[in-house]
């Protein structure tokens, strides 16, 4: 379970997150929507300590993420993350991309790491690309590679930061399908997304962020059907 309490984040004078309270339960899929600059990415980075926080707390399975005594490198293995840019390691084959961190971070043997990589690549539908280099893959394939790479660390949570925003429109579907597959398998997911269709269909709850504040959170029917906040209504009217 992820518990966020009164989270404040500043970049210098810029107050980016202004007191966020949020619980994400095991097995839940939460979509986060909101306009550009509202702090969605920053929230994800605060969950796995890629960004420091100035006030409040984040607990993941009871572990205080921002405590000095917390080993972030161990903690981050619990939280897989997929970014807007797919960030494939260009010098490694598809298989090596996925096998690298199980080997060096988890200390698995080469055979175990490769077995894990093969399993996760098949999982995302890249079973025929083991020996390819990333730059011979399409954007959609590289993003699925990024998902496999994160899954190979056997995370309990997956954080997606606009995983489809940098893709050609015709490649968006295959990545959303992969995310949908994970959701069906029971993965706990937080998805920052502009894909309202996906948010509506797949998520258990949707949160709307506005100017560093979580304006509204609820089941998709409620948030899309009868939004409570004026800001949410305006935002939804614009994206439709």
């Amino acid at each position, binding site marked *: 379970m992820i518990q966020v309490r009164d989270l404040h984040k500043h970049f210098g004078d810029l107050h980016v997150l202004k007191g966020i309270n949020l619980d994400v339960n095991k097995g839940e899929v939460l979509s986060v929507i909101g306009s550009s600059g509202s702090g969605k990415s920053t929230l994800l980075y605060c969950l796995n300590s890629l960004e420091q926080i100035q006030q409040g707390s984040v607990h993941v399975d009871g572990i205080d993420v921002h405590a000095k005594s917390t080993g972030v490198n161990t903690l981050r293995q619990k939280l897989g993350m997929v970014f807007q840019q797919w960030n494939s390691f260009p010098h490694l084959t598809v298989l090596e991309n996925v096998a690298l961190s199980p080997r*060096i*971070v988890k200390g698995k043997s080469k055979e175990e790491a490769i077995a894990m990589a093969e399993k996760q690549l098949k999982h995302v539908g890249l079973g025929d690309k083991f020996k390819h280099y990333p730059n011979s893959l399409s954007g959609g394939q590289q993003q699925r590679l990024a998902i496999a790479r*994160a899954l190979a660390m056997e995370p309990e949570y997956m954080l997606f930061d606009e995983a489809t925003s940098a893709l050609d429109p015709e490649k968006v579907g295959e990545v959303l399908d992969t995310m949908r597959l994970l959701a069906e398998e029971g993965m706990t997911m937080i998805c920052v997304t502009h894909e309202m269709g996906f948010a509506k269909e797949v998520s258990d709850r949707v949160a709307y962020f506005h100017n560093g504040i979580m304006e509204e959170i609820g089941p998709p029917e409620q948030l899309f059907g009868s939004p409570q906040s004026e800001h949410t209504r305006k935002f939804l009217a614009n994206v439709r």
Partner: protein
Amino acid sequence: MQNSISFFTGFGINDLWFLGEAALKTLWISVLSISVGTLLGTFFGWVLHEGKLAATLTIAPVLDVFRSVPLIIQLVLFYNFAPIIGLNFDPFLSGVVILTFYTASLVANVARGGIEAVPQSMRRASRSLGMSYWQDLFHVVLPIGGRAVFPAWIGVVLGVMKDSALVSVLGYVELLKASQVLITRTQEPLLILAIAGAFYFALSYPISRYANKFEQRWSK
């Protein structure tokens, strides 16, 4: 007449050996300074990138000096003034020390460029997988950034190899100095300089050829 003929003897096979040996010395002095200088320069580049204020204020100006003062002046100054602070280096060692720092000052910028060629989001991605700062540096930044600046580094290597000729001003008999000795004796500057040039080419050409091969392989 008789005397001068026996004094200025022609270019023989032994002289070719003499030049070959000198070429090996050029190679040796270059290999030493380039390898140590590259390690040192990579470290400096990392310090510059990390931008610890103190380090930047101390290292950066020193590197600037090594980069901008002509090598020949550095060599002569160091060779003549090092003994004053108790460093009695022979010409070879003086040459290696100065060429090493010179290489390091050039490589520092190349290395910093390499680190900065790796996008921030790539580094966040590897950290998000649980890699430590050092794992990210060695398994991601080094191979990706290293490839990005490899051509620039090869440029430094070839440059330093040619510049190593300047160590001859200290009296160290490397390729250029050996050529001068032979020219004085044989009075055949064109022939000997052509041969020396061929030796330099023979040292450099394989490097640029090999480098090209790597670049082509990586760009696939």
